[in-house]
């Protein structure tokens, strides 16, 4: 960087910017879009794309298998409301565990937050943008396979009635997907926002989701079929809570949680409490996370 070089360059002069400026809401939207791209590794190096792209491919695999099955005259291989439950649970845990830290821990680590907060954004705007981005990313991860499942099925369906039946079955599935996206994003971000070290954050998110899921399955298994314990065992893990709420809202496919029966409302309350707690933690975290 010779002084001469800069000397020559600066002779071109400084230009004022007289154009329009975006309002705060549009800046938040820009940050959301930027973060959504980052959630799939877009605008980052090739390494950042490995996990999201392979996770997306694996999530779509059952739907693609279904397309072949249906084309050979078989019935639809997976229900819309649970999809392939083990695949969806494992892949989504991995996706959130890797991508939530990508969205928040990275900024903590590089201490870039003061630069955001020194701009028109307000404190609360940052977690809102990050949540919207990760929830949208999760939505894409969950819903696109359902749409592939739907497309593969109706491609071989005969008659409007069959297509309509598929569509009616799909819609509750999409609603379940929305619940998944919101829940996983808010809990994943709340945990990840505590560490600037991505490895720690990823570990913490993965351990929380996997351990609680294992605990729920143990509780359900120990209690035995049809007991109250089995029905309530699912309350300890966000993923089984999501399944309990699905059943409570009328989902009929068998899922990881045995029929919740009259305890469905407990799952509903638990889901709201978990999401509320996640949001509160996230908000408090960014109210505090100062310039330091």
């Amino acid at each position, binding site marked *: 960087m010779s002084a001469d070089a800069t000397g020559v360059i600066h002779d071109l002069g*400084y230009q004022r910017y007289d154009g329009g400026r975006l309002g705060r809401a549009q800046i938040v939207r820009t940050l959301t879009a930027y973060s959504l791209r980052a959630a799939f590794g877009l605008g980052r190096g090739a390494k950042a794309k490995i996990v999201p792209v392979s996770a997306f491919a694996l999530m779509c695999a059952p739907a693609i298998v279904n397309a072949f099955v249906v084309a050979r005259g078989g019935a639809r291989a997976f229900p819309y409301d649970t999809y392939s439950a083990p695949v969806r649970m494992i892949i989504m845990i991995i996706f959130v565990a890797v991508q939530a830290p990508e969205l928040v821990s990275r900024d903590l680590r590089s201490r870039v937050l003061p*630069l*955001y907060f020194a701009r028109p954004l*307000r404190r609360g705007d940052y977690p809102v943008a990050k949540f919207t981005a990760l929830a949208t990313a999760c939505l894409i991860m969950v819903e696109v396979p359902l749409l592939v499942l739907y497309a593969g099925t109706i491609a071989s369906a005969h008659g409007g009635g069959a297509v309509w039946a598929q569509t009616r079955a799909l819609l509750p599935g999409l609603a379940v997907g929305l619940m998944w996206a919101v829940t996983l994003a808010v809990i994943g971000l709340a945990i990840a926002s505590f560490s600037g070290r991505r490895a720690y954050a990823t570990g913490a998110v993965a351990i929380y989701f996997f351990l609680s899921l294992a605990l729920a399955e143990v509780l359900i298994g120990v209690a035995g079929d049809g007991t109250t314990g089995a029905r309530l065992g699912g309350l300890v893990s966000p993923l089984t809570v999501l399944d309990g709420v699905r059943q409570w809202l009328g989902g009929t496919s068998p899922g990881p949680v045995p029929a919740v029966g009259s305890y469905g409302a407990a799952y509903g309350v638990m889901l709201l409490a978990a999401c509320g707690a996640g949001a509160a933690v996230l908000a408090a975290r960014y109210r505090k996370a100062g310039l330091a």
Partner: protein
Amino acid sequence: MAGQSPGTAVAKPPHAQPADPGDAFVLETTALTKLYPGRVTALDGLTVQVTPGITGLVGANGAGKSTLIKILLGLLEPTRGRARVLGLDCQRDASRIRALVGYMPEHDCLPPDVTATEFVTHMARMSGLPAVAAKERAAESLRHVGLHEERYRQVGTYSTGMKQRVKLAQALAGDPRLLLLDEPTNGLDPAGRGAMLELIARIGAEFGISVVVASHLLGEIEQICDHLVAVEAGRLLRSDTIRSFTQSSQVLLVEVETGTAELADALRCDGLDPRLSGRGLLVPMDGDMTCDVIRDAVAGLGLPLARLEQRRHRLEEIFRDEPVPAGQPNTRASTRAGTEVSHVS
């Protein structure tokens, strides 16, 4: 996203309507006090006005410089007192202030895994610039700080000096009316410091952007500032233009081989204020006649004159002198540039 107006909703450029045309100060604080939990006083009734141009904010580490900057950006609430930036209230209009102010923090703030262009473009967009304009201004800013060639490299591969330039570029990208630079020469080698200071001087002089530079290195920022604000323990030590500092800091060094004490007495009788400094006397300049008075006094006493030369106090001495109670000996010789400002004991 609540509060979103439909359409493009491109707001009026902030410069088109200055916050208050009658307001001559880029920043202004009144009895500003900030207490941190645990009875730590970061700012203690600081009242200061800063006019456009380049202003040095000097003080030792912990004097309250960074706290002041955070309050000015609306990131911290003052415990008491008021602060205004560009005529806007720091608590009420924080969002508008932040759209008009560029901030370069003291610490590292760059993600290593993006290119300088991507990072500065993103930060320009976060300042409210539309996508195309952000891209253009990011390229411009990086060119101004001398990173044109390297702008497509990942920031993690940059040297400390280049990283400091990226930090400056992101502050510049939003076309601010005021730049707040917190220790911009931190971690730089002497050549890097020189280049950074030159850049800041150019931003102030040629770009027409007011700059507040916080630093604990007085000798360094006095080279580029129009105005100096010295803070210590959260209080204002002194605020004045560099010119008045320099004027008041002209001194003559007089050395006589014998009879230093008699000469001092004679000069005192002539209305001058000589102070013993090493083997000689330091006499503050009081107009052009001072030299003549000294010459006549030396001749009148018949003393052998060894040396008579003009000297400039370094500014840190001025700051130090201020609070020293009268009668206390002050025999500090000029210190070299770059000496850190330290607390007055």
